[in-house]
């Protein structure tokens, strides 16, 4: 596939494994498969949501796509170029096309730099603009994300959390990326500020033709901002498809459990859902067969023996022996 198909990003059979530290040199090597054979793709202008519980591998997946990590298997194709093992100049070129918005705007901005310098930093590092041009572009971005030219001269501690996240977004946009990955972009913000940032991201997507990958554990936010969604459990995608399909007719028992666990906003619809039991299993010793089977209400002998294959109908992927 290539850019002509409208595919910005294609990730196939991606695997990232880490060696587990051994207690003695005679012990057998063991690995954690943080990402275990993941396939995702993203069209131009599309927003993909990635959902999963802590430890499921969603952040490792993002770090592989950005090539902050070199995956141990599979392929990452960005705009028709294979960047799986890119190095040097090729990697820098790829990095211009994809940028990251971090979860915690308190920890991710250098406290010694002014807002305009923070936004200019990626331009200084990766663009050919002169200092004056870079400054002007940074100022323009600061205004685009809703801050004033006067505010651009302030330091991070002089801003609120929401304003800091605006700086983080301006910084990510400095190099005109095609793809922005946002890892829990609003979870560190106050509830009344979240809508401001989500609306800003939506407006920028339309104006600049961006594509987003949004990682979140908040299903309502995914529902609001994403076109498609991938549900991850222990390093594998268990269900993937259009948000409207997956959330209105979830077919995998894990997706169903996640949706049922979200407390309903209408107090007249009180219900005590059948909660799923247990915790996420230890990733160094994943259960055999389907990784979800120890917590699954529909698990059978087959699920304990054999990991399910992914099947696709109408663009809705599912990896389950007993889907609804």
């Amino acid at each position, binding site marked *: 596939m290539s850019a002509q198909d409208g595919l910005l990003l294609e990730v196939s059979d991606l695997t990232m494994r880490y060696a587990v530290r051994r207690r003695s040199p005679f012990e057998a090597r063991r690995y954690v498969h943080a990402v275990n054979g993941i396939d995702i793709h993203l069209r131009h202008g599309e927003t993909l949501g990635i959902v999963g*519980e*802590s430890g499921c591998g969603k952040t490792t997946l993002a770090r592989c796509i950005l090539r902050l990590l070199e995956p141990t298997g599979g392929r990452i194709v960005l705009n028709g170029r294979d960047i799986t093992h890119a190095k040097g100049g090729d990697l820098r070129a790829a990095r211009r096309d994809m940028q990251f918005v971090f979860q915690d705007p308190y920890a991710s901005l250098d406290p010694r730099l002014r807002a305009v310098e923070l936004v200019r930093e990626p331009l200084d590092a990766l663009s050919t603009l002169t200092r004056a041009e870079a400054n002007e572009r940074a100022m323009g971005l600061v205004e685009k994300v809703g801050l004033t030219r006067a505010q651009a001269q302030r330091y991070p501690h002089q801003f*609120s959390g*929401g*304003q800091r996240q605006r700086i983080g977004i301006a910084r990510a946009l400095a190099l005109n990326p095609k793809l922005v990955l946002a890892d829990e972009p609003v979870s560190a913000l*106050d*509830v*009344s*500020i*979240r*809508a*401001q940032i*989500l*609306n800003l991201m*939506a407006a920028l997507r339309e104006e600049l033709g961006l594509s987003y990958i949004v990682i979140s*554990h*908040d*299903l*309502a*936010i995914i*529902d*609001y901002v994403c076109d498609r969604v991938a549900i991850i459990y222990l390093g594998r995608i268990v269900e993937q498809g259009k948000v409207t399909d997956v*959330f*209105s007719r979830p077919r995998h028992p894990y997706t169903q*459990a*996640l*949706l*049922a*666990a*979200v*407390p*309903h*906003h*209408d*107090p*007249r619809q*009180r*219900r*005590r*859902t059948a*909660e*799923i*039991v*247990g*915790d*996420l299993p230890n990733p160094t010793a994943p259960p055999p067969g389907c990784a979800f089977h120890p917590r699954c209400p529909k698990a059978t002998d087959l699920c304990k023996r054999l990991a399910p294959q992914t099947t696709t109908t109408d663009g809705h992927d599912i990896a389950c022996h007993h889907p609804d």
Partner: protein
Amino acid sequence: MALLSVDNLATEFNTQAGPRRAIDGVSFSVERGEVLGIVGESGSGKSVTALSIMGLIDPQVGRVAGGSITFDGRDLVGLPLAELQALRGKRISMVFQEPLSALNPCFTIGDQIGEVFVAHGDGAGAATRARVLDLLKLVHIPDPEGILRRYPHEISGGMRQRAMIAMALAYTPDLLIADEPTTALDVTIQAQVLNLIDRLRRELKLAVILITHDIGIVAQYTDRVAVMYGGRIVETGPAEALLSAPRHPYTIGLLASVPRLGARRPGERLQEIPGTVPSITEILPGCRFAPRCAHRMSRCVEQAPALAERAPGQAAACWWTEAA
């Protein structure tokens, strides 16, 4: 008479500009077997309210500056430390947001829960061990004997929070204060912990103060709600009435700005509340929400409104609501 009634409570902290009130004029009550939700963002004063009830405001940095906290007929404000310590952990308990930082990493779960009994003069030994085991069973911890010997870092977040709840329940308290008990947990684990608190409320007739910023949790798990903003209660009432017909502009704005699962219409933007939460040092003689309020009148900036009943059991502190 209510088990706990807080009347006109004010707590102040030292700032560079002198003492400033983090909460002011806070009044509410909680009955046995009832769940009161306190909703607010960071800086709203919801945690300070909880810490004031527990007598946990560090005298080096702050103090209760006015009002009363009447628990079972006794005023807790100014109570000698020894009497307060006899109540804390025995008749009033608290569950904190982040179980990993609330637990001591150097002691096993069994030792830490047992310490509650030791602190109240019941000694260690086999009898205490048996009581700890019963507590772990009460909060449905699988393999309680094993967990007893584990250190906090060896068990999952959900298990840690259950251990915290077990510790809080050591003497079957009359009042349980839970400050964002599930914010650090995944949704499937959140449902388990909240359902546990709800079951204990019914079985043990606990009065519960549930502090949260999640509207869904308020809707599903509370009987009455107090909405806090800038250190004051701006609206209070039965959960169902308040969520379906909010009267204060802040509550109205907050409910409209939060994404709800399955509520998105294509192209729709979230409603925003402009501006940011005021800081403790900002001097606002009128309504603390006035700078962000769409219905602001000149009176709002000059004079702080008091809570007044707008519907049966539902009160709002707002001049605009009064005029409407």
